[in-house]
């Protein structure tokens, strides 16, 4: 795997909601090689504070050399990102990590919650392109409320997949958790892909493990480098050994991870 460091021009930075944005960057080398589930490390400031790069999943790539990032403002770094204007530049390293394993045949369910929708969209796009005649792909998306979800749906609706939605506040789709929408789907699929809040991923992972369905989860941890150098991004593997999310992941099979009790 080769990672690149690019000084990327901002093509666009627009808000979907008050705190969710889509950032479009010109990063030809990353765009050309990125796989769904991989991420980039973005330097959000040229100053010494905030110091460290921030990790973001690749939400989409364009054939004209652009990468798209779907992000939510949760702190200082993401706030700075949201103030970028077209013509500004940011330094980006990527693509990083392993990415999801594409199983184009068989039935699969893709589950994305919150900003976890980002890699799930890129995955859905690739899966849709690779889709075999007899396969059924199902997408389940969740968010706090409808205004976060609706602007993203048009793009998903172009795919030959069934889309179900859940919102915490019931303002759109099912009132409740994505995990509840998964239950009826699970018996009919051989593969689940999930990205979202850790608590959600854990429930999905456990349901899949119970029913013997392959499940790939994309983990989040604090990352100082994203390159495998700082050894800061540890989680406990199923065997009790530490694994590093940036290098061995961020995508892990559900049974590779020791989920907290």
């Amino acid at each position, binding site marked *: 795997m080769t990672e690149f*460091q690019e000084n990327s021009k901002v093509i666009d930075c627009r808000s979907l909601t008050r705190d969710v944005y889509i950032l479009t960057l010109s990063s030809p080398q990353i765009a050309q090689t990125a796989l769904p589930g991989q991420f980039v490390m973005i330097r959000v400031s040229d100053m010494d504070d905030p110091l460290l790069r921030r990790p973001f999943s690749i939400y989409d790539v364009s054939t004209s050399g652009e990468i798209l990032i779907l992000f939510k403002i949760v702190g200082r770094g993401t706030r700075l990102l949201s103030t970028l204007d077209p013509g500004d530049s940011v330094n980006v*390293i990527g693509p990083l990590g392993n990415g999801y394993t594409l199983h184009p045949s068989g039935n699969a369910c893709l589950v994305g919650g919150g900003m976890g929708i980002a890699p799930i969209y890129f995955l859905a796009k690739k899966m849709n392109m690779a889709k075999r005649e007899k396969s059924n792909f199902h997408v389940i998306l969740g968010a706090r409320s409808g205004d976060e979800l609706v602007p993203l749906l048009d793009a998903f609706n172009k795919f030959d997949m069934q889309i179900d939605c859940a919102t915490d506040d019931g303002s759109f789709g099912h009132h409740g958790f994505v995990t509840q929408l998964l239950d009826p789907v699970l018996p009919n699929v051989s593969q689940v892909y999930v990205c979202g809040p850790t608590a959600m991923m854990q429930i999905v992972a456990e349901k899949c493990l119970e029913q013997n369905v392959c499940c790939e989860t994309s983990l989040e*941890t604090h990352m100082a*480098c994203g390159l495998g*150098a*700082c050894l800061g991004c*540890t989680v406990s593997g199923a065997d009790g050994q530490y694994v590093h999310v940036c290098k061995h992941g961020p995508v892990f099979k559900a049974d590779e991870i020791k989920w907290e009790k």
Partner: protein
Amino acid sequence: MIVKDLDLNVKIGSLLLKNPVMTASGTFGYGEEFENLIDLNRIGAIIVKGISYEPRPGNPPPRVVETSSGMLNAIGLENVGVERFISEKLPYFDHVDSRLIVNILGDSRVDGIEVNISCPNVKKGGVAFGTIPAMAAAVTRAVKAETDQPVIVKLSPNVTDITEIACAVEDGGADSVSLINTLIGMAIDIKSKQPKLANIIGGLSGPAIKPVALRMVHQVSQRVKIPVIGIGGIATYEDAVEFLLAGASAIQVGTANFYQPKAVEYIIDGISRYLQEEKVQAVNDIIGKVQINR
């Protein structure tokens, strides 16, 4: 006027480096992690993550947290151990034209040894060695007795008088001292009310600590005769030059590698530019040349 044949060579004991810029232990993995992002052959010396005899799993997560212009880490010396280092990591360096400095003892391809007596993240041993002059000297002597390689002893800044430790280590036979390791720090998550690091405390590194590091390097370089290697918050060539002027014979880049993997290259190029502008031919001619008028 362009200065021809700039000479960036520096000597650390018997070890000749093609330039004074190294990567700091624990911040550059085992080198190979950076191969796509920087030309490893340009680096003066690569210091790999501290290696212990047995592999060590390190501390539980969370292990890193960002602070203002810095970061705290409590990695806890996670490493593959001597055996796997030699079989899996060392061969990679056969094709890298940079000095390799490790924390383990002896081996043909190893060019030097840095002895870390200052890690704040390991409970026993380390810390005490680093704060008591007699113990620091004893450790140095023990290592020297076991190897013919140049021995660099890495000092802790968490002491009242770092020059005292440096002198002890010099007496113990060290070929060089490197400083500083991290300052001990802490951070608390006010929502969960828990320390942000599972280990409670961790080591503070990055630009935040540069002024403290520079002061200590200056103090130590005025007290010892062996070469001093400056570490702490170095991210730009300007930072590096400050340390050279303060008395460092070479410098190490740590945390900056994480956010700017090309930092070492930029620093080497910047030092060359600086020498050109200052019309100085050899980097050795600026070492310790801070102008103090009183």
